[in-house]
């Protein structure tokens, strides 16, 4: 049976896959970033069709709206040029192709194994904001808080790694920074 829901679901899925392929195929970073935004938005559409309105909205706000803006911002700030084409690294060939093969075999095996089970109806899973809040802040409070602390540590680590040691003299340090901007 081909309902409107299923057609839309397949269409969003096709957009997501096409966006992901385009992300790899494009040579310019900004086009790749925009493809990733399309993937995120298509995923939000899939969530919406599965009855998770809250998750869909959050997906758009957080991923498509905030994180990807930072990606685009970085690309704009660095003014990254067109990507250089290489023949590909040897590591990618040695580990990448077998990895992909093993991954797809595993995925196919799991799918075949569970082919008899019934699919979950759209909207049958808990997706209301209240339910998600209960789960996050009640049942999974400890993992949630530990994840936030992990992210905080990662942010602080990034700041420590990125920041240069403080310089007391004004002359040479600022000059080099300006030179960097000019080049």
């Amino acid at each position, binding site marked *: 049976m081909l309902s409107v829901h299923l057609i839309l679901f397949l269409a969003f899925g096709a957009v997501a896959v096409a966006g992901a392929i385009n992300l790899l195929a494009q040579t310019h970073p*900004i086009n790749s970033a*925009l493809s990733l*935004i399309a993937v995120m*938005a298509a995923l939000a559409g899939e969530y919406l069709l599965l009855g998770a*309105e*809250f998750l*869909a*909205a*959050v997906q*758009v*706000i957080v991923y*498509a*709206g*905030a994180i990807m*803006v*930072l990606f*685009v*911002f970085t*690309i*704009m*700030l660095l*003014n990254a040029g067109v990507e250089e084409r290489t023949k590909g690294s040897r590591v990618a060939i040695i580990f990448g192709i077998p990895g992909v093969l093993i991954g797809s075999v595993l995925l196919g095996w799991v799918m075949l194994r569970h082919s008899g089970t019934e699919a979950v109806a759209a909207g049958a899973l808990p997706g209301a*904001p209240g339910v998600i809040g209960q789960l996050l802040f009640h049942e999974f409070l400890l993992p949630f808080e530990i994840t936030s602390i992990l992210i905080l540590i990662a942010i602080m680590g990034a700041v420590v790694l990125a920041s240069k040691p403080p310089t007391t003299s004004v002359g040479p340090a600022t000059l080099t920074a300006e030179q960097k901007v000019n080049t």
Partner: protein
Amino acid sequence: MPIWLYILASVIKSAIVLVVLLTAVAYTVWLERKVVGHMQNRWGPTRVGPFGLLQPLADGAKFLFKEDLTPPHVYKPLYIAAPLIAVIFALTSISMIPFGNSVTIAGYSIPLQITDVNTGLLVILGMTSIGVYGVALAGWSSNNKYSLLGGLRASAQMVSYEISLGLSLVGVLIMAGSFSLRDIVNSQGGHFWGFIPRWNIFTGQFIGFFCYLMAAYAETNRIPFDLPEAETELVAGYHTEYSAMKFAMFFMAEYANMITVACLATLLFFGGWNGPLFGPAILQAILPVFWFGAKIFAFLFLYIWVRGTLPRFRYDQLMAFGWKFLLPLSLVNVIATAIAVAW
């Protein structure tokens, strides 16, 4: 309600809302020129029509007939897409806004809203957060340093203030217990002691309202937060290279965003269409929409008033204000509201 009638009602509602919104955008520009003119002891537009009332039409015709110049050094696909992104997401977010209760036509109850989504507020936030790309990509694809700086400033500013904007609304959400704008407005009905309306602004959300207003002004790139298009430093910022209708699209997006902000402020903090009802039945049906419009007008006037009054922030002041003042304040508001509600 049969499906064809539902679709017909939706199409008619969308058409009416779009026409009203675009007219409102055009006349907000007129209002701004007129009011700022009078604030600066000038007349503002007076030549086209009485009180210059036909000026928006003249401007629109001018935008249509101007040469649509595409500079040779731009990255064309994104240069064309950027104004479209800006204007489409600015106009779409109005579809979640309810203007009043439902009206009953021929036995069918039709809500005065294009669509009532149960996460309406989040959808609007999502739309506005996608709209940032219009400005950012315009700045980047123009291949011009002033545009690029404008686009960078705009994206940094919008990402920074989006957090305060979201957090400032959490207080209202805690009080209403719903993301649906209709439910939020309905939760603000009734009066204290018979005369003070139960609007969120009077039930302890004034800090939230202050944070919302500041963050929303920054999100719409309006004075005093209009650094992305600071004329004194950046020529015209991200839209330096745009002309004719493409420029007009950015203009429309900015004013449509202003109207959305005014609508949200009205719905979330000032009781939406709630107001005194009196007179015969027909007046009782029209008055809610009138109150809603009047409150939006007040917010738009405030926008213009602020523009005529305040100078522009410096960039470091903007970032310090957003991160060191507005964000902590909105967090305090969230915690205080949560404690007060849990009490």
